[in-house]
């Protein structure tokens, strides 16, 4: 998981590369580097350990017309200056995002031929391999070298023998080309270059691109030209900046009042009591024919998927399983063509999830992607795609993209329930009416964020945290634990409340806060007795409850955080906001790096 950029044109190459890399820091930030060809035709390489600012500090002002850059998140070899990209061999410089699976055997072969390796990375193999096949055509050499490689890559290649050309190629790692006026760009992701151009070409797998100042030519791996379509991107770039907030995460938590609306806009049909999902491309009969749903997702999206299971089963009566992408593809999935496979990924580039749906497609299943990024790889791989429209999310800890995924799952489940005659129009209308009120409820929780801050400060010394919930609140418990782990580095566990007594209760003691997600509902009495279980062991309880009722729970809980009253089924949308703020303020009190937690990156494009 890394980010690559490249530039060719008359602009200030060094600063354009630095600026683009900064926008890709969410993909990794443990070391960075760039290669440029200066006006004398000499290749100049700069690398440094740490964030982009560390690289900026060592790059002098040089005039140049072509360059490539890289921000790294270590997979092979430690995050050191030596292992930072670009990697070079002779006149060839390479930046790479992905993993070369057969690099050990290629490395031995190249060493026996006399190539000298100075880093521990798999990428250096690529540089030597290209050098080995190079005679006078750089594109041909890259194509031949890639023919020997197994694994995934998005690469940018330059050579000081060809100062007028950049070569790029892609397999299973994201890559786009930006088209400017007398200048062109390559990048792992759109935000990197949006400041300079909004004309984009999406590169598909096994394509090789020759980028010159005034032309972009795309070829397949046999060297045949490929026609590509140009896309105009209409996001505004500044939407991805902090706008007065101290952290992207807090800004994005606040944006949920807006993003939840965006997810619903034009999709609710209250009078009819149905959800309008034309883009889904599945009609009533097709929906009725599914016998099982298999949800595949990773990380936060997995927690959303788990709620999806309760919804599809509880509302629409379809048997549903949830698997993490990394497990699913190596299990022996039992899939029939009557199974609908739903993949949930914010970025649409999550390697594990992508691999899993490709696997599912090979069983003849319909695949439905729920993603936030229009034109992402998964939207091209899946047979059906719906977009969550949460807008760009920069904080590594997912917040608004998660609630939008939940909303999307509610809409989908209601739609399926209606199509399968499992829900009447009146119940659907009621749920949709309540859904419309959710952004208002969220803004109420945000108004009272001070209470949650107070709560976080009270338990900031805790070494361990437990989050418990039952039924639809269980995924929220998991998400609460995940958020806390991610950004505050406190050990946290999410448990189905009923499971406590089967083991984890042994860990409950005086110093362990237990967050109980306990809005009113059919499991309310049960979770109340779980709360008593832990208070009997002297643990502190933080209870998330509905506004109307906390007199009873107040007797047992040390801290009560109320959420506004809504339909029981929809409470996860609200309790989620509470656990997000709890994690945020805890990390804030502990002075953690909230937007860039250690060892993590936003979009996980490696397996």
């Amino acid at each position, binding site marked *: 998981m890394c980010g690559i950029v490249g530039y060719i044109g008359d602009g200030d190459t060094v600063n354009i590369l630095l600026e683009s890399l900064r926008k890709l820091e969410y993909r990794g930030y443990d070391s960075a580097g760039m290669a440029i060809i200066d006006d004398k035709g000499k290749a100049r390489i700069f690398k440094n350990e740490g964030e982009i600012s560390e690289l900026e500090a060592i790059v002098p002002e040089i005039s140049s017309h072509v360059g490539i850059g890289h921000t790294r998140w270590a997979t092979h070899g430690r995050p050191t200056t030596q292992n930072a990209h670009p990697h070079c061999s002779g006149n060839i410089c390479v930046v790479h995002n992905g993993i070369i699976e057969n690099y050990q055997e290629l490395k031995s072969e190249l060493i026996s031929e006399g190539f000298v390796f100075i880093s521990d990375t798999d990428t250096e193999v690529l540089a030597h391999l290209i050098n080995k096949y190079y005679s006078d055509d750089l594109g041909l050499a890259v194509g031949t070298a890639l023919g020997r490689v197994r694994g995934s890559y998005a690469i940018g290649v330059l050579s000081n023998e060809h100062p007028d050309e950049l070569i790029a190629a892609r397999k299973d790692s994201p890559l786009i080309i930006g088209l400017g006026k007398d200048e062109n760009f390559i990048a792992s992701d759109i935000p990197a270059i949006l400041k300079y151009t909004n004309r984009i070409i999406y590169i598909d797998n096994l394509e090789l691109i020759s980028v010159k100042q005034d032309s972009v030519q795309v070829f397949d791996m046999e060297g045949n030209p490929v026609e590509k379509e140009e896309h105009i991107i209409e996001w505004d770039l500044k939407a991805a900046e902090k706008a007065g907030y101290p952290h992207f995460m807090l800004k994005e938590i606040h944006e949920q009042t807006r993003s939840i609306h965006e997810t619903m806009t034009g999709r609710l049909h209250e009078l009819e009591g149905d959800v309008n999902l034309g883009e889904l491309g599945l009609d009533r009969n097709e929906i009725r024919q599914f016998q099982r749903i298999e949800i595949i997702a990773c990380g936060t999206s997995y927690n959303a998927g788990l709620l999806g299971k309760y919804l599809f089963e509880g509302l629409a009566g379809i048997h549903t399983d949830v698997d993490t992408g990394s497990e699913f593809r190596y299990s022996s999935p039992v899939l029939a063509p009557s199974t609908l496979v739903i993949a949930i990924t914010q970025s649409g580039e999550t390697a594990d999830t992508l691999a899993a749906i490709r696997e599912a497609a090979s069983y003849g299943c319909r695949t439905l992607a729920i993603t936030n990024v229009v034109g992402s790889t998964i939207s091209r791989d899946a047979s059906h795609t719906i977009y969550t429209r949460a807008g760009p999310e920069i904080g590594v800890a997912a917040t608004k993209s998660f609630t939008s995924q939940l909303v999307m799952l509610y809409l989908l489940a209601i739609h399926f329930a209606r199509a399968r005659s499992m829900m009447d129009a009146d119940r659907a209308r009621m749920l949709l009416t309540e859904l419309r009120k959710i952004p208002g409820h969220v803004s*109420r929780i945000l108004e009272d964020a001070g209470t949650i801050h107070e709560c976080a400060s009270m338990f900031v010394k805790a070494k361990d945290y437990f989050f418990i919930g039952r039924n639809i609140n269980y995924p929220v418990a998991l998400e609460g634990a995940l958020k806390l782990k991610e950004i505050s580095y406190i050990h946290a566990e999410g448990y189905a409340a009923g499971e406590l007594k089967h083991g984890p209760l042994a860990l409950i003691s005086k110093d362990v806060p237990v967050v109980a997600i306990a809005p009113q509902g059919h499991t309310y009495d049960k979770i109340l007795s779980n709360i008593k279980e832990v208070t009997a062991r002297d643990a502190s309880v933080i209870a998330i409850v509905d506004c109307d009722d906390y007199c009873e729970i107040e007797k047992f809980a040390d801290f009560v955080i109320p959420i506004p009253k809504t339909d029981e089924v929809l409470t996860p949308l609200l309790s989620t906001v509470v656990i997000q703020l709890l994690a945020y303020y805890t990390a804030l009190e502990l002075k953690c790096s909230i937007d860039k937690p250690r060892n993590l990156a936003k979009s996980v494009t490696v397996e």
Partner: protein
Amino acid sequence: MKAVILGAGEGLRCRPLTLTRSKVMLPVANKPILEHIIDALFKCGIDDIIMVVGYKKERMMDHFRDGVNFGVNITYVEQKGQIGTAHAIKQVSSYVDDEFIVLNGDNIVEADTISDILAGRSGDATILTVVREHTEGYGVVLSEKHRVMKIIEKTKEDLSHSVNTGIYIFNPDIFNYIESTSISETGEYAITDTIQHMIDDGKNVNMVNSEAMWLDAVHSWDLLKANAYMLDRFEPPANVCMIEDGAVVRGRVSIGPDTVIHPGSYILGPVVIGKNCEIGPNAVILPSTTIGSNSTIEPSTMIKNSIIMHDVRVGAFSYISNSILGAHNSIGSHFITETGEDLFIEMKGILHKAAKLGTVIGDGNNIKHKVLTEPGKMISTGCSIASGVNVSRYIPRDSKVF
């Protein structure tokens, strides 16, 4: 030139609407007051804006972000503790190094207002004034020709008809005078004291009178007047909504994307409706009404001369007139607002006059069916009101009324 907008204050006289947002974020013609100011600055070519924020700053930051959607660049500077305009301006000292314009975030202005002071500026500081017949409650300026001799805070006597708009052009010199401004009797550092200090020091402070728009909403109900005034002069953009067959939309009406107007509805402009709303069937919306985004007006409801904010649901068979409904209210069927004239409304023990008013309702209330509000009786925020209740007194925050 950079602009400094003062937007940190609470707007206590606009309770209950300002319990959840600052006064500058109150909507007029479906846009926060502050957005009208930013639009005017943008039209005058001023696109570098420093916003002094404090009370409920998140609402402002969420709406304006970095300003890119408004064609400007916004920097937020926090004023901790609202202890006067001079203190607020002092916060921006490290952000300006040249002449700059200062505006209050809660007065609506148009581009001409700003170009008047830009064109007429001179001397060491310039004050924009407007002529008003009644100046009670306003700050006024005493001058000889254009030279300001004395600047007076909220007066009760008719000393001058030149009202101080709080729009100034300063140069960085002002920061030195702010340093030596002492605290006033009311416990504030007022910029008017700073300016008086400059005048006494022999500096050349001038005034520019403008006949362009400058609207000041003191109380929440003044918003209705401002709203009607702004709607009278707006030019509706092309509608992109869905107007179903059998619905009638007449006059200057602006309707946002994804909004649906169901059959039998009758909308008579000037009216502004936001995006993603559902109106009707058979809803009647009469002039000088604005409806914020994501709101639902259920069948057979009539609304006139009112401000309905975003995310509001008004139940079927309701009648709303001369009223302001805050955001996120959920209202059942048969909701009625009674209108009264020449009302006296008590706030913190002081009576305030309202010429014509139905009710003002804060945010996030849950109002059941068949509720009636008596003239001028308001509902705060977060209340639940049971079916059949007659609201005959002010309902304070988070009340439950059975």
